[in-house]
C-alpha cells in the first residue's frame, strides 16, 4: 500500500522505494564520467557501496584498499596532494569510529579535500546488529573543526548531495543508509550544502528532521494534521554547517521544536539545534532519537519501531508538548 501525501508545498509519494546508497553509486558513476579528479576508494565493500559501475567504468581511479580502513583514510589524505578528489567509502561505523584519529589528524587538522562517504549508517542497517549500527557518527564528525556533515533523506537527495560534495573544497562526511526507503524528493530539487529545505509549512510546531526520519516526519505530520496540529517540516540534510537562519525563522513562528534523527540523542542534530536555540531563541524541545542505547538485529522497520524512530514516535513526541 503506497501513500501519497500533499503538503502545503509539495506532493510526496512512497511509490518508488530506493536505497540512498544507490543514489551515491549513481552519482559516483556520473562523477567518474565528468570529473577526472574524482577517485573512489573502498575497503572490501564495493558492492555494498554501489560502486561496481564506477570500478568497472573507471578502474584507473578506483582504489581497492582491502580491509584496512585506517590506511584508506591516510591514503585519501595523500591523494589530495597533487589534486585528486578521493571519496573514501565503507560502512559508517568503519568510516568514523574505527578511524577517528586518522580523520582527525590526516584529514581534518590537515585541511585535506577528502570525502568520507559512509553507507549503512544508523539502526536501519538491520540484521547485522549493533556492531555495525553506528549511532554516534554524526556527533564524532561534527565535533571536528572544519568538517562538513551531510545526511540526505532519500535516493534523489543522496545523488544531489554526492555531486555537491565533489564540488565543495574541503573535508566532508557524507552519510547514507542501506534499506530501500521512499524516494520522495524530486530530481529537480536544488541542493545547496548548508541550506535546509522547507518540506511543509505549518504553524504549531517545527519538526526538524534529517536522513530517514524526514519521511517518518512527513507521515507523522499527516496524522497530526488530522488531529488539528499544524507541523512545519524542515529537511536538514546538512547538519554542519547548520542552517541557523531557516531554523530560527521557523521557530519564531511555531514556538515549539521537535528534532528527529537516526542517531543517539546526545551529540547529533538534536544537540546542534538545542545549542543554537539555547543561545539565540530558547524554545521548548522534544527529541526523536535513540536514547543512550546500542541497537540489535532485526528488520529496519522493527528496529525503527523498537528504538523510537517511527512516525508514531514523532506523533507522540509532538502531542507531548
Amino acid at each position, binding site marked *: 500500500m503506497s501513500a501519497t501525501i500533499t503538503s502545503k508545498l509539495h506532493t510526496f509519494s512512497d511509490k518508488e522505494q530506493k536505497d540512498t546508497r544507490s543514489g551515491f553509486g549513481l552519482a559516483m558513476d556520473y562523477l567518474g564520467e565528468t570529473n577526472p579528479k574524482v577517485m573512489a576508494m573502498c575497503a572490501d565493500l564495493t558492492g555494498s557501496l554501489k560502486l561496481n559501475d564506477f570500478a568497472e567504468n573507471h578502474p584507473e581511479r578506483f582504489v581497492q584498499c582491502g580491509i584496512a580502513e585506517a590506511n584508506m583514510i591516510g591514503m585519501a589524505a595523500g591523494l589530495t596532494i597533487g589534486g*585528486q578528489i578521493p571519496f573514501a567509502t565503507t560502512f559508517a561505523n568503519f568510516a568514523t569510529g574505527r578511524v577517528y584519529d586518522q580523520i582527525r589528524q590526516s584529514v581534518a587538522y590537515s585541511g585535506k579535500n577528502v570525502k568520507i562517504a559512509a553507507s549503512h549508517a544508523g539502526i536501519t542497517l538491520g540484521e547485522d546488529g549493533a556492531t555495525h549500527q553506528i549511532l554516534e557518527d554524526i556527533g564524532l564528525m561534527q565535533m571536528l573543526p572544519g568538517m562538513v556533515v551531510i545526511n540526505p533523506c532519500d535516493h534523489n537527495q543522496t545523488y544531489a548531495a554526492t555531486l555537491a560534495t565533489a564540488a565543495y573544497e574541503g573535508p566532508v562526511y557524507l552519510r547514507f543508509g542501506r534499506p530501500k526507503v521512499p524516494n520522495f524528493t524530486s530530481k529537480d530539487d536544488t541542493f545547496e550544502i548548508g541550506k535546509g529545505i522547507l518540506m511543509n509549512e505549518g504553524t504549531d510546531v517545527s519538526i526538524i528532521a534529517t536522513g530517514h526520519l524526514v519521511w517518518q516526519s512527513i507521515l507523522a505530520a499527516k496524522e497530526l494534521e488530522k488531529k488539528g496540529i499544524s507541523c512545519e517540516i524542515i529537511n536538514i540534510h546538512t547538519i554542519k554547517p547548520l542552517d541557523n537562519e531557516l531554523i530560527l525563522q521557523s521557530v519564531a513562528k511555531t514556538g515549539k521544536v521537535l528534532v528527529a534523527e537516526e542517531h543517539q540523542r546526545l551529540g547529533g542534530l538534536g544537540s546542534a539545534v538545542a545549542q543554537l536555540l539555547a543561545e539565540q531563541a530558547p524554545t521548548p524541545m522534544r527529541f526523536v532519537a535513540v536514547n543512550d542505547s546500542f541497537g540489535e538485529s532485526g528488520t529496519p522497520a522493527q528496529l525503527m519501531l523498537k528504538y523510537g524512530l517511527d512516525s508514531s514516535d514523532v506523533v507522540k513526541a509532538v502531542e507531548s508538548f
Partner: protein
Amino acid sequence: MSNISNLEQLASQVRRDILRMVHAVNSGHPGGSMGCTEFFIALYKELMDHDPSFNMDGNNEDVFFLSNGHISPVFYSVLARSGYFPVEELKTFRKINTRLQGHPTTHEHLPGVRIASGSLGQGMSVAIGAALSKRRNKDSKLIYSLHGDGELQEGQIWEATLFASANKVDNYIATIDVNRQQIDGPTDEVMAMGSIRQKFEAFGWEVMDIQEGNDMQAVMTGMQKAKTLTGKGKPICVLLHTEMGYGVDFMQGTHHWHGKAPNDDQLANALGQLEESIGDY
C-alpha cells in the same frame, strides 16, 4: 672544501638549532632529531628535486613526509636552512602563535609541511596516497617518508606496507630511523621488534640498509642507491641505522633524550661540542 664537508658543517649547525630550540621552551624531542640530521640534510640539500617557494600539490617535484612528527626540530631547521622560511623563525618553535607547532602541521601554513603528523603511524599511508596521486598525474618524481622504528609498532603501518607492495607502489622510498630507542626505553625491551628487514621483505618490499646513518657520505651514497631501486615494481624500504642524540657525547645512544630538553649547563656543554659553522639563528 668538498661538498661532503660543507654538508657536515651544516649538520653541526642544524644540531645547534635543534638543541637551542628545545632548550628555549624546555620541551620537544632532541634525541631523534639529532640522530636524523644527516638524513634530512642529504635529502633536502642533495637528493630531492624540490622547490622552496612551496606549493601544496608538489607536482613535478620530489615530496617528503615526516611521519614521526615529534622530530620536528630537525625538520624545521633543515627546511629553514633550505630556504622554505626565514631561519629567524626557528626562535618561535613551540611558542604561542607560531607556525612551528610542537608537531608539524599544515594548519598554520608553514611552507614545506604537507600533512600534520604526531599521532604515529599515519605518514606511510599519506605518502602512498601521494605516490598514487603522482602516478595518476603521470609525474615521474618520487615520494619519500621517514618513520621511527618504534613507530612500526602502530598497526596502520602494516596496513600501508601491505597495500604498497600489492599495488606495486614503486615511486616511493620509506626510510626507517633504526635507533632502537623509544620513549620508555630500548625498543627491544618495550616491544621486541625482531628483524625489521625480514618483516618488510615478507610484506614484499625491497629493503636496504644504511649502516652508518650518521655518516654524511654513507647516507648520501645509500640514498642514491635507494633511488636507483625505484621504478622496479616494489616499494623501497631503507633501514637507516642511527644513534639517538648523535653529536653530543652525553646524549648519544640512549632514550633519555627522546623527549627531554637540556638545561642551561647541559646546553652549554652540548654547544661546546658542536661548531657554529654557519651562524646561529
